[in-house]
């Protein structure tokens, strides 16, 4: 393949991606306004609840004021998921940057 053709192919694929999901990378993150941490449920509680529901948790941390969990859903998808730290509600799930659930 010629250089110009290769560049064109990449440009076309990118354009298609942008039109299909404008700035998907920008929405693959979440912000929570959940008040002081003293009122939060513990991360361990969230992890054990998820495990009971059939998830595999690889890692969890605080991100943007939410709990962020890297793991595998009961359906087997490798995801990055955001949960509200007070209500433990599931807010956003993305698979390799592609949003597959949004509250």
């Amino acid at each position, binding site marked *: *393949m*010629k*250089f110009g053709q*290769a*560049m064109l*192919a*990449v440009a076309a*694929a*990118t354009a298609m*991606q942008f039109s299909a999901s404008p700035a*998907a*990378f*920008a929405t*693959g*993150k979440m912000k929570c306004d959940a008040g002081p941490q003293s009122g939060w449920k513990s991360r361990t509680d969230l992890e054990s609840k998820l495990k009971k529901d059939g998830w595999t948790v*690889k*890692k969890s941390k605080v991100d943007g004021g939410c709990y962020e969990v*890297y793991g595998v859903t009961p359906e*087997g*998808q*490798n995801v*990055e998921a955001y949960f509200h730290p007070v209500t433990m509600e599931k807010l956003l799930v993305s*698979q*390799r*940057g*592609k949003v597959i659930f949004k509250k």
Partner: protein
Amino acid sequence: MLRILKNPRLIWLVLAIPGIAMVAGFVRDPVTAFDLIHPSGEYSVRLMIVAMMISPLRAVLGRRSWLDWLLAHRRALGVAAFGYGALHLAFYLYDMGDWGMIAEEAVIFSIWTGYAAMLIFAAMAATSNAASQRMLKANWKRLQRLVYPAAVLIALHWLYVDGEWEAMLAHFVPLLVLEIIRVVLMLKRRSARRAKHAMVN
């Protein structure tokens, strides 16, 4: 000291050290495969970017001995970038551990851009020897130029896979700026040559 810097085997060893550390960590505790996807990918990108910066740096700064040194070892940098890409892929496959899910993810934009870049890296690495260079003649240079679409693919891969656009830009903007300066210089020199021709005529 300077003689040591010229030893090709030492360069390969130095480039391999972080990879050896990653593999050792993995062997000790395979659960770390998930955490090793990140550093192996970053090493791959960094080595590719350093290799890609050598030519534009020479165009901008002129000949420098440290640039000559880098140029002499560019092949090692490129092959190491491929090596870390392969390690990155191996950690990813191990972490996934399920061919069905691997296939399902392969069609996601952030993932197929990674595979596409890896294919280019593989083709370049496989032909990174004097015999291939002789055999392919002018096509060899054409093949090497595929590193530019590979760089674009990796920038997109990074951006989409985890949305860390600040880290991605921190790596790619220096290269982009250098390439822009190189093109501007090239155009300037060309028009200066043309002006000179016009005067002679």
